[in-house]
């Protein structure tokens, strides 16, 4: 167990970060180089030097995966509610309003029908910029409907997960979404449908412990953190620091929990090929 305090998990670095002016340039957590932001964007959000996969928004993800202009969004008018009247350092209502303004999304998921290399499918992507892609009632409902649509229309289902887990601000309602989405995926499987689960950095907690781990085929992006209890949770509860590489996509592959690691630029063609093999 490495215990030198300098271990850095992507996004959970224990080191004090040096300030970097946001905008034109960004620092790559992989190679520590300063890179021109536009270069990263043109490269699908991947560092051209070290192939570090940056987190990308749900809309970027869909744009990258789907054939041009083929995506038809569904349930874009679903809004979260503050069922518990939850307030921590900020009221949940306010937090939602701010993020809705900032991201242009209503909640942390975008879902719809689209085509990947000419193959029709149901696609959902979680957004790391909206409360870390956490699953509350809206995410749960949209993922559930995605699975139901895929079952009904006999289309493959692709969900790109990128999430901190169940959303605390919706309490046990969020917890219930785990059972709800898993049950819907169960029905899809029963009907012989295909579900390709793509795990991006990070996929953790209640999302990993529900639909994300229930794919017929599970793909992950290089270096993605995939876990049940995240490094911070483990630290808080049992005070153990994780060895380097623990819970990374490569680690999960080695332990038999995912099918393959796919570079972002290969994702489209892998998905298309898997759909072909499964005869969907």
């Amino acid at each position, binding site marked *: 167990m490495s215990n030198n305090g300098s271990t850095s998990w992507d996004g959970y670095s224990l080191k004090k970060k040096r300030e970097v002016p946001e905008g034109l340039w960004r620092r790559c957590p992989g190679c520590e180089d300063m890179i021109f932001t536009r270069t990263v964007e043109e490269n699908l959000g991947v560092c051209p030097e070290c192939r570090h996969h940056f987190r990308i928004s749900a809309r970027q993800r869909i744009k990258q995966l789907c054939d041009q202009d083929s995506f038809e969004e569904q349930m874009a008018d679903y809004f979260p509610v503050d069922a518990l009247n939850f307030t921590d350092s900020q009221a949940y209502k306010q937090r939602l309003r701010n993020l809705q303004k900032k991201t242009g999304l209503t909640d942390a998921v975008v879902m719809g029908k689209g085509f990947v290399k000419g193959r029709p499918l149901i696609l959902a992507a979680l957004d790391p910029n909206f409360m870390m892609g956490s699953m509350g009632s*809206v995410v749960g409902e949209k993922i559930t409907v995605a699975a139901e649509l895929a079952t009904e229309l006999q289309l493959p289902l692709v969900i790109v997960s990128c999430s901190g887990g169940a959303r605390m601000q919706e309490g046990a309602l969020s917890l219930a979404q785990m059972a709800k989405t898993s049950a819907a995926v169960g029905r899809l499987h029963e009907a012989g449908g295909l579900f390709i689960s793509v795990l991006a950095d990070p996929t953790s907690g209640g999302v990993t412990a529900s639909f994300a781990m229930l794919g017929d085929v599970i793909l992950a992006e290089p270096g993605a953190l995939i876990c049940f209890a995240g490094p911070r949770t483990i630290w808080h509860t049992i005070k153990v620091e994780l060895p380097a590489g623990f819970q990374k996509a490569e680690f999960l592959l080695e332990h038999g929990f995912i099918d393959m690691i796919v570079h972002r630029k290969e994702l489209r063609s892998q998905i298309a090929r898997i759909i072909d093999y499964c005869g969907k």
Partner: protein
Amino acid sequence: MTRTDDFSVAVANEPNGNGYLDFEKPLANLESQIAELRALQAAKGIDYSPEIRQLRSNLVKLTSKIYNNLSAWETVQVARHPRRPILTDYLSLMMKDFRELHGDRCFGDDRAIVTGFGRIGREKVLLVGHRKGRTTKEKVECNFGCAHPEGYRKALLKMKLAEKFRLPIVCLIDTPGAYPGLDAEERGQAQAIAVNLMEMSRLRVPVVCVVIGEGGSGGALGIGVGDRFAIMQFAYYSVISPEGCAAILWKDGAEAPKAAEALKLVSKDLLKRGVVDHIIPEPLGGAHRNPHEAVHNLETHLIKTIRELRRYKIENLIENRYRKLRSIGEFTIAEKTTSRTVRTAAAVETPVKPTARRKTTKA
């Protein structure tokens, strides 16, 4: 017959022990006064019974006053009370002829989850439950009720066994959470729980779940998907522990009482949002004050529910289970408010045809 009365926690009735929670101090005082008077009565042969009766009636009033107004955090304390009945107590007091079944046939036998055949009343069931342990040795042995992946896999394997031989399944939930350790992560804690959620939603036998103490997030849900989901009056069920939530959102674990309040994790709040569909009443002052009554209440609920669920055709049972799971959640659609806190009762009372489709969400 294993219905014994040599219940290790019958000590719950012992007066003036050190098992009082902070907010129970006034009760401790009254109880010690009663004890003193009794001692005096015995020693001096004077009849203090009217005074004792008065004090006893005060005690009842005060207990019900305190317990009717528990804060969320105080409820969490009751759910974690060292003398609260735990799975092993329910096993010895409620289950007849319990035959434990071990192992996940793959990695090991997780002592944090107990599975086995037994009878509740006249109903033969498969029981699955979290085991917490009473003594320090037991607690360590079963990891304080925090299961590893092999525990969840064992649970599923035995539930499949019950499905094969058409036995109803009873799940008794009492865990702070699934174990957040390196070995658990390495062996796929998330995957194990995910598979349980999916498979339990489709089991072709009645599944009755009850939170008897702590309902700690995914660890609770991993054996908590069924046709009925009930909670004991002073148990809690939450997406994250109050301490964990406080550490993340308030940046201070000591703010747990605030987090507990905010998470709305107590039984009546959960019932209001349709997360649980029934509250099992506890004896005056909590299950730890009268374990036999708590056991009786749970037993009554289980027998009644199993008998009721047996009446459904299996297809209807599964369709209703799906509808129930599916109906939980609150959101709005554009301007039209269609908040759907769903009373599961309405959905489950009427058996539906297997072909029935869910209602569209738009009102």
